[in-house]
């Protein structure tokens, strides 16, 4: 019975993810082919008639709209967006070859923000009103208010120009990834710490912690086994949000630091009016976000007994 309930939950989340992807593909189609005029998007204004015709042929604009829609959505679901106008090759491989850079940046930000945020948030929950606790409140408030692209420039000014510790732009190891990762880590770190703090505090008020204390268990065991396990759902949720917010913010930050990821490619595509390439990058990032959300949802089945015993 239990496995059946879990399986039903997993299947429902999976179907939901597919539905979201289908909807995203439809929105991209609707924006690019119905709201906007693809020929004008790709060519700008005043161009010779044969170039207009060439674009119409390549994008298949001469077919009726429903045919275009089915072709686009079925293409999108197997990640086929047609040829890039700028590079004259299929758009997807261009996006795929940039994924490692984006993954490297996202992973670094995750490792910088999440473990530290959880540890400091827990410590703050153990000592409410301590300097650490107040520091975390201030930091998370600053984090959500932060103008991240401005912070990027200020970090460049301080760490690269003044101190010369890190590189201002380019792709490579530690010296290159530090500044973009630091910029993107500020907000998630504050939010993870804040959420961890309040989730742990809520736990400390509950009877089972009192029982654990009364049994004379060691404080460390209480905190990490009894409280953390039950506080895990909001913490995992916010950790997943870290990844999605980095992916969303990557257009700005990757562009500033010339980090050759998908976000920078999006802006290059926008600048060259390359509609298929832009559609491919936007859909790829949306796909990654959907996958992260799916993984978070699936982890609930393990973490949240309410789902297991529903």
């Amino acid at each position, binding site marked *: 019975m239990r496995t059946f309930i879990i399986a039903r939950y997993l299947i429902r989340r999976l179907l939901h993810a597919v539905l979201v992807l289908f909807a995203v593909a439809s929105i991209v189609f609707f924006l690019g082919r119905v709201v906007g005029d693809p020929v004008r998007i790709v060519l700008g204004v005043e161009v010779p008639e044969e170039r207009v015709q060439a674009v119409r042929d390549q994008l298949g604009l001469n077919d009726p709209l429903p045919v275009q829609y089915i072709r686009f959505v079925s293409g999108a679901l197997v990640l086929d967006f047609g040829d890039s106008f700028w590079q004259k090759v299929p758009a997807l491989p261009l996006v795929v070859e940039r994924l490692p850079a984006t993954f490297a940046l996202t992973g670094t930000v995750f490792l910088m923000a999440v473990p530290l945020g959880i540890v400091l948030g827990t410590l703050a929950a153990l000592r409410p009103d301590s300097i650490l606790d107040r520091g975390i409140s201030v930091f998370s408030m600053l984090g959500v208010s932060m103008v991240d692209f401005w912070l990027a*420039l200020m970090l460049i*000014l301080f760490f690269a120009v003044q101190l010369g510790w890190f590189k201002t732009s380019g792709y490579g190891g530690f010296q290159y990834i530090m500044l973009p990762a630091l910029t993107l880590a500020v907000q998630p770190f504050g939010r993870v710490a804040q959420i961890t703090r309040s989730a742990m505090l809520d736990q400390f008020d509950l009877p089972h912690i009192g029982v654990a204390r009364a049994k004379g268990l060691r404080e460390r065991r209480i905190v990490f086994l009894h409280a953390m396990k039950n506080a895990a759902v909001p913490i995992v949720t916010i950790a997943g949000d870290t990844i999605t917010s980095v992916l969303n913010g990557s257009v700005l930050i990757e562009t500033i630091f010339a980090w050759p990821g998908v976000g920078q490619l999006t802006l290059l595509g926008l600048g060259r009016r390359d509609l298929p390439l832009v559609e491919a990058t936007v859909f790829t990032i949306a796909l990654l976000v959907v996958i992260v959300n799916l993984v978070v949802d699936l982890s609930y089945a393990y973490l949240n007994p309410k789902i297991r015993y529903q």
Partner: protein
Amino acid sequence: MATQTARLQPTIESSSGPQGIALALRVIFADPITFTSVLVLLIVVIMATSANILAPHDPALQNLRLRNQPPMTASVSDVTFPHVLGTDQLGRDILSRIIFGARTSVVIGLLTTAISGVFGSALGIIAGYYGGWIDDLIMRMVDIVMSIPSLLFALLLLFIVGPGFWNLVLALAAFRWMLYARIGRGQALNYRNSPFVDAAVAIGSSDAGIIWRHILPNVASPLIILATTEVAILILAEAGLSFLGFGLQTPSVSWGGMINSGRPYIATAWWISAFPGLVMLVTTLSLNLLAATLRSVADPVQRGRWLNRQRPHRNRNRR
């Protein structure tokens, strides 16, 4: 003073405390952080509404001989007032441009928040009030749009429809209404089964009347608190789009655009980017701090403690 506070406590903790403007003034003056945030926001709004009077120089006036000049450089066109925050790469006065830039941030921030807020709240309240398939449909839509990276899709939308004031407003509002719908639905669902709504149904009030008179006043405060933080988020989003060149086009001045224009000169003329960003940070920080205060005040349990607090955090954490 201490005894006075103690005597005030019970009246404030019951629902009949100070109301309306009296409560607002009390809150603003009770806490220096809230006072400062309100003051900052007031200054930003004044900058936006009377930029023409306040700006010491013409924000579009170029002077190529005074390019990238540091703060406090003497002005050529106006001897009485130096370039307090320096000049940009075209020799324009940065302080004046920041003052005019406030207009873009305030107008776009408030307008997009109003549009997304009204739309999202309406959908959420309808979903929560009627339930059934309408609820399912609206909430499924919310789930879908929630998992779309908003900045990226705003960028895509602007790329497709081209720049422009209303295009920008719609691109920003289109992907930020979902939180209102979630909160509005939860609240409406709460009050849907409350005795006073049952009573209104019993005396034959229409659905629209019930929503307007009985549901809306009760669900308003969490939605207003959300809107306060959303203004900050939308100001940041507008600046991000302007930074990438997809915001309002010249002659409109935007803080995001100003930060971008200083990018090539960050090593030699840091003030071009630094000051607009700093003003923006202070603005968004004030909005978020104000939202935090509103959150405490809106909660009837926390309100009394908040207004008469001695040790603000401890009480709340160790119930």
